[in-house]
Every structure is written in C-alpha cells, then in structure tokens.
C-alpha cells in the first residue's frame, strides 16, 4: 500500500507540514516527565502507555477508541498544552492521490520520533479531500490519505496509538473554489491528544 515515490517523479505531491516538529518539541520538551528517559522506563508508566499487540487487536475489534491516559498530572498538563498550542501539522496531497513521497516520509518520521519520546501522547490523523468529485468517494480518499500516513508510523510500531478518521470534503480549511484552496484542502491533519 505504501508507496515511496522518488522526489524526481513526484514533483509537488506533498508540501511541508505547516508547523515543524521542532516547534512541538520546544512547546512540550521543557516538561521533564514527557521526554525524560527515566520516566519512560518506569514500569507502571510503560505498562499503561505502551499497549501490547493483543490489547491493540481487541481494541480494534470492539471498535473502541478510548485510550488509557497516564494519571501523571505533569503528562496530562503537557498533553493539554499540546492541544492548546494551536500548532497544526498538515501534509498536503496531489489530486486524487494518497501517495507519500520521500520528503513526506521524512516529516512523518520526525513525528514518529516525537511520539516515541512522548509515550503518553496519542495521535489522531484526519484525512481530507478537496471539493471536486463526489462526496462519498472523497470520504474514502480522505481515509486513504490518513491511512498512508499511519502506515509509515506503523513501521515504528506506533499503529496502536494512531487513530484514523476521514471527513472527506466536508471540512475544508479554505472555502473557495480555486486551485490554491483545493491544494490546501487535500490534506492530513496531525492532532495530538
């Protein structure tokens, strides 16, 4: 499913995230409990935060997306702050495309590292499409885009912490009917929670 297309072939398949992962680190990193290696190693935290694969499967099966958050208040505060940062991570896509090129892969890997450094944080990937074409097809296309991003994160064993939803063309960032609007509306949003 995942196609890593050489940059030469996919000229502008993806544009950069509108914010960088570095900015995210700056917002959250000062909280020692989030990135502190010792904290990550603490047994109680680990067992709650990093579910084993069997738990993952049962979660998928029941369709439940509730996750067990750490009781650690510092972590909670960090997640809360993350929500309030207003930083939006967005990957854009080509018309009718859900391919992840090499550049995008590098961007996603930064998120993978960030998630590994912050094991209490989960990620919701929201796939979106532009208004062209039919609504139901675009709903499917939006999910494919988010799944393509999730697939890269899956290479880092992060699938269980990634939720995918699609809004198709229903939630555009720009409500205009031109090339620029369409380009920006074809996207996956990274929402940390």
């Amino acid at each position, binding site marked *: *499913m995942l196609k890593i297309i050489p940059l030469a072939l996919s000229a502008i398949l993806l544009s950069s995230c509108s914010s960088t992962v570095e900015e995210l680190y700056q917002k959250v990193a000062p909280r020692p409990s989030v990135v502190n290696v010792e904290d990550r190693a603490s047994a109680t935290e680990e067992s709650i935060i990093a579910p084993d694969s069997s738990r993952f499967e049962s979660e*998928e099966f029941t*369709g439940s997306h509730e996750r067990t958050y750490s009781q650690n208040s510092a972590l909670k505060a960090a997640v809360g702050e993350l929500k309030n940062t207003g930083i939006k991570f967005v990957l854009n896509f080509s018309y*009718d495309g859900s391919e992840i090129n090499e550049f995008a892969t590098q961007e996603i890997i930064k998120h993978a590292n960030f998630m590994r450094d912050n094991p209490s944080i989960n990620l919701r990937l929201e796939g979106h499409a532009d*208004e*062209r*074409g*039919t*609504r*139901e*097809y675009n*709903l*499917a*296309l939006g*999910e*494919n885009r988010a*799944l393509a991003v999730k697939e890269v994160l899956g290479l880092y064993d992060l699938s269980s912490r990634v939720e*995918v*939803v*699609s*809004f*198709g063309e*229903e*939630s555009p960032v720009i409500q205009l*009917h031109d090339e620029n609007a369409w380009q920006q509306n074809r996207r996956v949003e990274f929402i940390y929670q």
Partner: protein
Amino acid sequence: MIKLVIVFLTLYATAAVAVLEVTVLKKDENAFPIVISPFSVKGDAKQGEVIAHIMRDNFNRSGEFNASSADYIVTSQIDFGKWQAQKIEAVVIGKLEQVSEKVFNVEIELLDIYSRKTLYAKKFAVHDSGIRRITHYLSDQIYFALLGEKGSFDTRLAYVTVVDKGKRKREYRLEISDSDAQNPQTILRAASPILSPAWSPDQNKIAYVSFKNGRSEVFIQYPFMRRKTQKLPYFDGIASAPAWHPSGESIVLTLSKGGNKDIYSYHLKNDKLTRLTHDTGIDTEASYSADGERIAFTSNRSGQVQVYIKHLKTGKINRATFNGSYNAKAVFSPDGKSLALVHRVDRDYRIALLDIETKDLTIMTENKLDESPFFSPNGGMIIFATNKGDSGVLSVVSILGRETFELASKSGEVREPNWSHYSK
C-alpha cells in the same frame, strides 16, 4: 388504491421549516399545452384555487407540459373549437363542494380538445389536510392519461441544508418535503455533516450518514414513527454511502474494515453482513437496479475513478464507463437501462447519462461542480446538486436534457438530494 378520506401520517419531533424556493427554469415551446381551469366552488373558495394552482405548478415543473389557467371557470359545456383555435390540447375542469367544516367533495375531469372526449374523471371526498396530497395523486393520473407513463408528483424529496452559523460553525439539517418542495420538515439537526440520505422503498425510513460521533456512520431514521433511530454496524474505519435494496430488507453500504473500502450488504432482519466487492482500491457509492439483480458502484481499481456493475447472481463485475478519466456515483434509471452519474469534463464535474448497453454517454448539464444525481421515480427527470453563485442548490433536468426547475434555500446551501419511490 385511493381511499375516500385519506388519513395522514404525522411527523414526530419535527419543526416546520422554510420552503425551498422553486424556480421553473424554462418553459419549452414544444411542451404539451394544457389548461387547468379554476374550479367551481361551493363553500371555501380558497381550496379550489389551491388544487388548480398545485396542479399547474406540477405540470410546469415536469418539463413535459406548458400549463396555464383560464380567465373563467370552464365547465362541461366547453367550447372545444375555441380551445382548439388556441392550440390547447387538453383542459382540466373541476368542482369542489364543501360538505362539512373539514370535508370536501371533489370532481375532476380531463378533456381532450381534439377528440372531444373525457380521458379521465374522478369523484371523491377528501379531508382538507389531504387536499395537497390528493392533488399530487390526481396530477399523476392526468399525466398518465395524457402521456401513457407515470408522473412523479405523489412522491417525496429528502435533502440536506447547511446554514453558516459564523465562527466556522455550521448547522446541518436533514429535511424531507413533498415533490414540489412544499410541506418541508426537518427530521435531523446536527453540528456535523450529514450525507447521502436515502428513502426506503416503502417511504417510511431514511438511511443517511452522520458524523455526530466524530466519524462517518450509517443510521436509519423513521420520520413518521415513534421509533428510535437505528445505527448500522461499523468497524474501525468509515461506514458510508447507504443505498436500499428494492425489497427494503437490506442496505448496501461502504465499510473500510481494516482500511480497505469495499461494498457490503447488510440485512436488516438478521444483521447478516455480506461482502460484495474484494478489491484493494476504493469501492464505494453502490446502488441497486430496480430488480435488485445488479449494483453499480464507483471504484479506482483501474487507477482511475470509474463506474462498475456487479451482477449479483453470477458475481461478475464489468466496467461500465470508458469515457473520460472520472465517472462516479452512478444510479440506475428505474427501467435499468441507463445510469445517471458524475462525469468529469476537462476540469468540470457534470451529470451524464450512460446507456449501459451501447455505452453511449450523454452529458446533461453545463456546470462546474455537479454531484449526487438521482432519478425521479418515473425516470423522466434527474435531480442533482450544483453550485449557483457561491451557494449549493438542487437542480432538475429532464432526461431529454431540458433543464426544468431549481430548488434553492434562502438561508443557506441545499445538497444531497434523494427522490422517494411512489407512495403506497
């Protein structure tokens, strides 16, 4: 078929809403010239004019007729020669007599000007709450008497309206109305999108997609019953694009179990889920033929977005569209011979009619972003969503390619039209 006094179903938990504005786009010069005379009335005169007015509007919206009124009440002592000289081909005359506060006797007659014969006549009593409905029924009868095919008047529409509430907030409403947009009712209000409403064949249920739980899920609502809305099963991904089997016993929908979007059939009585497509690409937007033997669906299995037809008995899947790089959201015509679909022309998305047998594709519209085509129950018209100015409206085109009418909301967008089957 027709009961003496029709008792009407009431809608539960609904509020009256604004009627969509109906604009008849073009009167065709060659359309059938018909006169619907004012009725002679004993009692409440208003109701007589209501019937004649609704009937004229019905015929004009159909695109098949050029309906007008007369300056005086035409009776059975009609001067055929005079109407013939005016090139009128048929005249409808009627009498209305109020027999009690709420009950009326109605008499109606359709006269053929050339043969000077009565083509249709009916006499009955009706409760005043049933006058609108009975007029649609009579319009269907007259339509049939003149053209030899059914009308689509005694039917209902479902559609979604979207009102901008400012601060990036919108209100989505699932609404139903009579075929002439009158009698509108909101059956669902939500802050999140509503997609793909679909009337059940018995016209008692509506399936639709809601995002109220943060993701797309399929629901069935009972607008005329005090019955809880039912949620169809979903798995970890999207559930969407519901369409009814003609028996009303099952629904086809798109599920993305494990991320793979395929078409499934869900049986409402035994909850059995049957997978109908098995491709790794996107399969979605399924709809049944009227005999229930085929489904048409959208797939990108070829690398392009195209429409396919699966024969359910043999399991064979054939590609239906070969013209252009994007064809999607196909629905079968009631006779099963053609598909209405969304077709990309250069950079524009338009409604096209595909002859399944010959593969001839006829582009029916000239807009930029047309979507969601759906046939009127008689197959004579296609309703679809389009943009006018910056707002979404519904438009109706006859299958002969004539634009007939448009439905617009004063307060926002209208989209996702669906046309019911005939009333039972």
